[in-house]
């Protein structure tokens, strides 16, 4: 089938502001949006710039706005969208070129929550064991691939500099890990003025997450943990 891709273009060397360009491509209904973008880049306009790496929904490189919602281009099928598809870069970040945005602020926020296991106790002879119940607590937030779909979907993030959903999800992943010992430090980071309390439970993050993580629920769990443990 033939679809029209309306892509937001921006070249910082020649353009003063972003503009839209339309491309007609021939694709199968079961193709992904990424396949359509590849069609454009490989056969029509080699200057089109976007990130993609694994193309199988795991690396999180090709997060972009597809028909106004944050999605991974490699996970959305053409048949879910119809014959007119608008592709734009993620909101809330500086556009470097076309669909590529500067995610450095995103990773800066991510690093502040100390997204790694902190435990100074001498390691046991075997691995640090968890019960299935303990593992269940971090099951959902362990799935994050850092694609930035959630953070770039957050209306609060568009206007205010705050941690953003992704950083909190990764804080949650270690905060609720029974093997982690840095609870105090992590709660202190998340309890800052621009920590979890900026969340207004809008649920755009949950809707956008390509991994199906209950993002807002995780943020609320962190809020309650601060409320009941530090209150």
């Amino acid at each position: 089938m033939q679809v029209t891709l309306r892509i937001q273009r921006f070249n910082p060397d020649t353009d003063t502001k972003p503009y839209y360009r339309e491309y007609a491509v021939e694709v199968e209904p079961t193709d992904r949006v990424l396949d359509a973008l590849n069609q454009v880049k490989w056969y029509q306009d080699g200057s089109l710039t976007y990130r993609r790496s694994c193309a199988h929904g795991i690396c999180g490189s090709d997060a972009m706005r597809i028909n106004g919602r944050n999605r991974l281009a490699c996970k959305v099928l053409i048949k879910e969208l119809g014959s007119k598809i608008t592709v734009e870069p993620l909101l809330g970040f500086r556009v470097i070129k076309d669909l590529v945005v500067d995610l450095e602020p995103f990773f800066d926020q991510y690093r502040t929550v100390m997204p790694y296991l902190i435990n100074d106790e001498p390691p046991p002879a075997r691995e640090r064991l968890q019960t299935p119940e303990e593992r269940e607590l971090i099951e959902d937030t362990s799935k994050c691939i850092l694609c930035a779909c959630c953070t770039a979907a957050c209306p609060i993030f568009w206007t205010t500099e705050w941690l953003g959903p992704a950083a909190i999800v990764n804080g949650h992943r270690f905060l609720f890990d029974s093997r982690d010992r840095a609870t105090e430090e992590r709660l202190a980071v998340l309890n800052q003025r621009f920590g979890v309390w900026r969340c207004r439970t809008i649920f755009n993050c949950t809707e956008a997450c390509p991994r199906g993580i209950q993002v807002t629920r995780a943020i609320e769990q962190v809020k309650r943990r601060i409320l009941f443990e530090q209150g």
Partner: protein
Amino acid sequence: MTTETVPPGRDTAVASTRGFVAYRGYRPPAGMLSWALHRITGLGVLLFLLLHIVDIFLVGYGPETFNKLLFLYRHPVFRMGEIILVAGLYYHAANGVRIILIDFWDRAAQYERQLFYAVIAVFLAGFIPTAVLMVRAMLT
């Protein structure tokens, strides 16, 4: 060291995805609509409260001044405004309960959309009879 020249207008183009302009760039899911309505009704109710404080303050200048201004409240435009105010109050109250549930009940996050539809149902159930009564009072 090299110096990069930045063409005029480039900064504004680059910065355009941050700030309130971003609202227009996203197709709002139900949750975003509920939040936007909550903010708008919240601001509307606040605006009325400020007005209300001013008119109550006028009692201090004696009953005559106060009564003289009451014509405002009988004006059809103001009474239409009152209906809108009631709508805002009902929505803000119902959605406020939804937000409290989300904050304190872990399962509520999974049902936020259904809760939003419940908010709309509660809003309509409360607002329609009230609006009928208010319009009837306006006409008589």
